[in-house]
């Protein structure tokens, strides 16, 4: 019975993947891709990974979907390449088919052999969990045992945002309808924003003991910012270069600062004292949530019509 559900999910997954690549209209392709993200969230639930399911639904389907749709509208205005599938050339088709089939064959062969883990890392995780300051193993891994991963990951996010802002001073065609003049959305957002914020903070808080954490919370926050932007409540903060970039750096800076505090006591970088580890992790996660929300929102904002520089140089 369970296998039936799994097989159905896999079939839907592969079907949606094919549709998102080979459907005629690019708009539909993006829609199928967003749907695929939602189905993937279900798959992660079946794989006993609720943390990834939350992240996939919020980041993979939500934020990526927003970015793709936004770019699609923009490409329609600027490029004269038809977004429809063109007449495909024969040699390219056969090359693609052979490569795709080859990848499937090789990977299927590779994973058909059962693998034995060389080092029992999970035992080490469960042994040290009591000293990590949190009770949820994934948060413990991300922010205590492997905190370098998370630190560098946030650095990657900041780097991507910096490159994006450098490229932005372009002659982009202004999108005429910049926001949705919808009074209902406007009123609803005012009602719902406290709730969205509460959900975000709850996800952050719950991350210590249950699925949740900074990334999911940051994505929810970013969605709230995007909604704000769409109804035309333009934040003055986003227009100011210092606040914009300061918001990106904030989480990373706090992480480095908190992480280097043990250095004062002769401990290595990013090793928290066992008794205060919980506070340290919560502090870092709060900074990360705000910064990740702000960076993801900026990524959406950066490609919008009014570059900052135009404000300064009339």
């Amino acid at each position, binding site marked *: 019975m369970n296998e039936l559900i799994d097989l159905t999910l896999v079939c839907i997954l592969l079907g949606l993947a094919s549709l998102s690549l080979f459907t005629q209209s*690019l708009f539909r392709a993006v829609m199928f891709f967003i749907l695929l993200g939602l189905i993937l969230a279900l798959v992660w639930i079946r794989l006993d990974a609720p943390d990834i399911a939350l992240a996939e639904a919020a980041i993979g389907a939500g934020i990526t979907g927003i970015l793709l749709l936004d770019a699609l509208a923009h490409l329609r205005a600027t490029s004269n*390449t038809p977004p429809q599938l063109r007449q495909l050339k024969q040699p390219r088709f056969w090359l693609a088919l052979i490569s795709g089939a080859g990848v499937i064959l090789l990977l299927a062969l590779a994973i058909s052999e059962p693998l034995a883990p060389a080092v029992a890392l999970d035992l080490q995780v469960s042994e040290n969990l009591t000293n990590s300051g949190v009770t949820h193993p994934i948060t413990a891994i991300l922010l205590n045992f492997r905190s370098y991963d998370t630190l560098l990951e946030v650095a990657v996010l900041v780097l991507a945002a910096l490159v994006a802002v450098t490229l932005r001073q372009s002659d982009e065609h202004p999108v005429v309808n910049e926001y949705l003049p919808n009074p209902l959305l406007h009123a609803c957002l005012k009602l719902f924003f406290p709730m969205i914020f509460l959900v975000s903070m709850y996800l952050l808080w719950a991350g210590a003991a249950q699925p949740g954490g900074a990334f999911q919370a940051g994505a929810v926050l970013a969605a709230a910012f995007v909604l704000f932007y769409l109804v035309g409540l333009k934040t003055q903060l986003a227009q100011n270069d210092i606040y914009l970039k300061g918001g990106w750096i904030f989480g990373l800076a706090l992480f480095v600062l908190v992480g280097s505090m043990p250095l004062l006591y002769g401990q290595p970088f990013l090793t928290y004292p066992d008794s205060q580890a919980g506070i340290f992790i919560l502090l870092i996660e709060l900074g990360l949530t705000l910064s990740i929300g702000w960076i993801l929102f900026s990524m959406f904002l950066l490609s919008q019509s009014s570059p900052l520089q135009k404000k300064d140089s009339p």
Partner: protein
Amino acid sequence: MSSYLIFAYGGVGLCGIGVFGFILHTHLLRRLIAFNLLGSGTFLILVGLSQSGRGEADYIPQALVLTGIVVAVAATALALVLIRRWAALTQHATLPEDQGPS
């Protein structure tokens, strides 16, 4: 066959479809979608395969995939900015070597 392994094979399928689409298409946005499919397939293999060997949830690959998803969205956002810039400069959403003599 455990349900973990089924999803690992599903990930294999996603990887194959992703590679197929990435080579086949010339439109950059479609290529980006194909690239994301390839990434999702990799994540599924990573978690599914490791858990099928143990028969229970394995938190270490899950944490790695969580990091991977966030990096993937950063890469996607960056690619979209590049594609837009390219389209604004050249009025094309394909690369010059793919545009053909038409």
